[in-house]
């Protein structure tokens, strides 16, 4: 929660007495009273405003959190020996979810515009393969340069597709469907007759890439890192909120600011504590896998980009009303093209994580399923398919739901078909929530 989604504002007196509708029409009557919405809210007013938003259909993060808790409870009960909630499984679950999470955060950029990118499954694969090929002995690039090259290749693909979509005015659905086929083919071409590339050889750069998922941070370092992250978050959040309260702007009440900071601290402590439990069967395995801070970094960076920069603001504006954005002087084609670039580049990182998780890449990568899970994760997390609504964290929460279903059904020993069916049903439920909430919340903006 932050200033972007907080619209609490203590109701003014006229509204208390007249009700919101009556107040709306009596503009001049209030005269030169207090400027609108600048009274800092109390916690009660804040909760009431939040409840009103939920009732009006903008449920925000509520459905996915409820869903995540429900999935966790169900699988904990039905999994053999309640193994679902064991430290080893939870870390495993996060490793498995990481690909979905990063892909979904990337797809989120495009979904915010009301578009879709069907190609990112195989674009991700290309990113992973480029990185993996470059750390092979023959080019022998350092791991970081290989990853950068993989991301750059994906960004170039995104730029190409985005330019075709915006300049030639072809629907993104078609262009990225073509991309789906093209990059599938290119992937097989790059992998060559062997049909695979491995990064498990005992070379330092290959081990570094492999260590993204299977390398662990020293427990002490993890605790120190967590302390730093929480401290930075606490200071930034406190200063922002307190500053806004002081100058009488719309701001969350003090206890809510404290609650936000505590929530982040507790979540962080839980994650680090779980990861620092010895989960090895034969040899001790302890520590936070590197992929967790990597996913966190993507989440934080893309949240800042979307919610704290003018580019991010323009993405929301174009998704909400492209015409309004155009008249406000926003270069709409540039915003859209860049969104496809960012989407593809983020997908490239997901591909690198996937490569690390699999220990290499093969022609068996199912890019079609990956992209559908990415879209599903974003939508389950609360991103609207109609554009204009969604946040980077939706990808995290939705990706965790998909990862949990995948993991839980696997623990039950159920075959893949059940995983497909359950994931499909959850997606359907999520889209229904999205669609219903749109229908209720904004009758004025009925769309074709």
């Amino acid at each position: 929660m932050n200033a972007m989604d907080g619209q609490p504002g203590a109701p003014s007196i006229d509204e208390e007495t007249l009700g919101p509708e009556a107040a709306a029409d009596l503009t001049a009557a209030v005269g030169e009273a207090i400027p609108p919405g600048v009274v800092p809210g109390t916690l009660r007013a804040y909760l009431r405003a939040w409840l009103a938003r939920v009732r009006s259909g903008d449920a925000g993060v509520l459905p996915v959190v409820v869903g995540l808790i429900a999935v966790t409870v169900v699988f904990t009960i039905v999994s053999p020996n309640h193994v679902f909630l064991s430290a080893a499984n939870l870390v495993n679950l996060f490793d498995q979810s990481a690909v979905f999470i990063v892909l979904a955060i990337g797809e989120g950029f495009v979904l915010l515009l009301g578009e879709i990118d069907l190609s990112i499954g195989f674009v991700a694969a290309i990113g992973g393969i480029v990185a993996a090929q470059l750390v092979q002995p023959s080019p022998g690039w350092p791991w970081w340069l290989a990853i950068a090259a993989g991301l750059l290749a994906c960004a170039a693909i995104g730029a190409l597709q985005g330019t075709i979509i915006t300049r030639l005015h072809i629907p993104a659905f078609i262009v990225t469907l073509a991309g789906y086929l093209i990059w599938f083919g290119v992937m097989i071409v790059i992998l060559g007759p062997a049909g695979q590339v491995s990064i498990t050889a005992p070379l330092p750069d290959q081990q570094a890439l492999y260590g993204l998922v299977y390398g662990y941070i020293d427990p002490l370092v993890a605790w120190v890192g967590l302390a730093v992250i929480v401290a930075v978050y606490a200071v930034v959040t406190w200063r922002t909120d307190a500053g806004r309260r002081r100058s009488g702007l719309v701001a969350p009440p003090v206890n809510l600011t404290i609650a936000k900071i505590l929530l982040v601290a507790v979540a962080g402590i839980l994650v680090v504590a779980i990861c620092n439990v010895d989960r090895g069967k034969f040899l001790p395995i302890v520590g936070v896998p590197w992929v967790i801070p990597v996913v966190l970094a993507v989440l934080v960076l893309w949240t800042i980009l979307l919610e704290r920069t003018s580019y991010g603001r323009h993405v929301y504006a174009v998704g909400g009303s492209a015409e309004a954005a155009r008249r406000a002087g926003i270069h709409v084609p540039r915003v859209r093209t860049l969104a496809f670039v960012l989407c593809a580049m983020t997908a490239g990182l997901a591909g690198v994580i996937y490569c690390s998780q699999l220990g290499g890449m093969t022609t068996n990568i199912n890019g079609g399923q990956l992209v559908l899970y990415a879209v599903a994760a974003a939508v389950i997390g609360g991103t609207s398919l109609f554009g204009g609504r969604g946040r980077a964290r939706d990808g995290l929460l939705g990706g965790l739901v998909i990862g949990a279903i995948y993991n839980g059904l696997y623990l039950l020993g159920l075959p893949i078909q059940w995983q497909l069916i359950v994931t499909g049903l959850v997606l359907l439920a999520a889209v229904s929530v999205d669609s219903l909430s749109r229908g209720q919340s904004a009758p004025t903006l009925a769309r074709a």
Partner: protein
Amino acid sequence: MDLRSTTTSPTGDVPSGPPVGGPDISQPLLRLRGISKHFGAVQALYGVDLDLLAAEVTALCGDNGAGKSVLTKCIAGIHEPDAGEMLWEGRAVHIRTPNDASALGIETVYQDLALADNLDIVQNMFLGRERLSRGLLDEDSMERAAGRTLAGLRVTTVRSIRQPVATLSGGQRQAVAVAKAVMWNSKLVMLDEPTAALGVAQTRMVLDLIRRLKDHGLAVMVISHNLNDVFEVADRIAVLRLGRLVAQDRLAAFDRERVVDFMTTGTSSRPAPAAGAVATSDR
């Protein structure tokens, strides 16, 4: 550009009253001379002469297809006229793009409002012109400025300026669109059918808002079909018919019947209700 940062108003409010010691008030803020525009074979405007004065509301009337929108878009920089000249504060100007128009201080409030429903009021008012501090959005400063502008226009019924525009009533949305237009040191605000979709109470609210813009010294041009609104709020009336400006005078020179005559036939044989009424031309 800062929100009216050049004014001396201590609260940073929208300034009240016409600027003192500014350019000669009697000189029109914008003077159009012989503006013509055609699209292919269709001649949309024939040599239109129109004066827009500061601190006055000019109503632009005309039947469908009279050229009201084309004229507005020529002033807003969306269309470039084929012929004619525009004098802004006495200086000849060429307005080729919407950015040229905003640079002069011309803002347009379109009929469909051009607000993004998913953004809140502050975000909409600063859309495309966000304030940054160290590369990131300066929400505090934008929220304060938006709050001041709304308070200056006495738009005080919105629950919170952080609520999405989708949750506002039609009148409130119109108010936000107007506030967005006046934030930028604008001197001329053009409103295209500002009351077309509104109920009675909300229409009243918007008309009050238009009067307040005038009181703040802005030139206002209102395009309207609704003669009730026109006679309630306008100081001057200009009538377009088939691309020609057939009448332009002070409100007192018209009554409803005369305006309708001019709109439909381009001339009126009825006596003017007040002395000194002169129809500009019947070319």
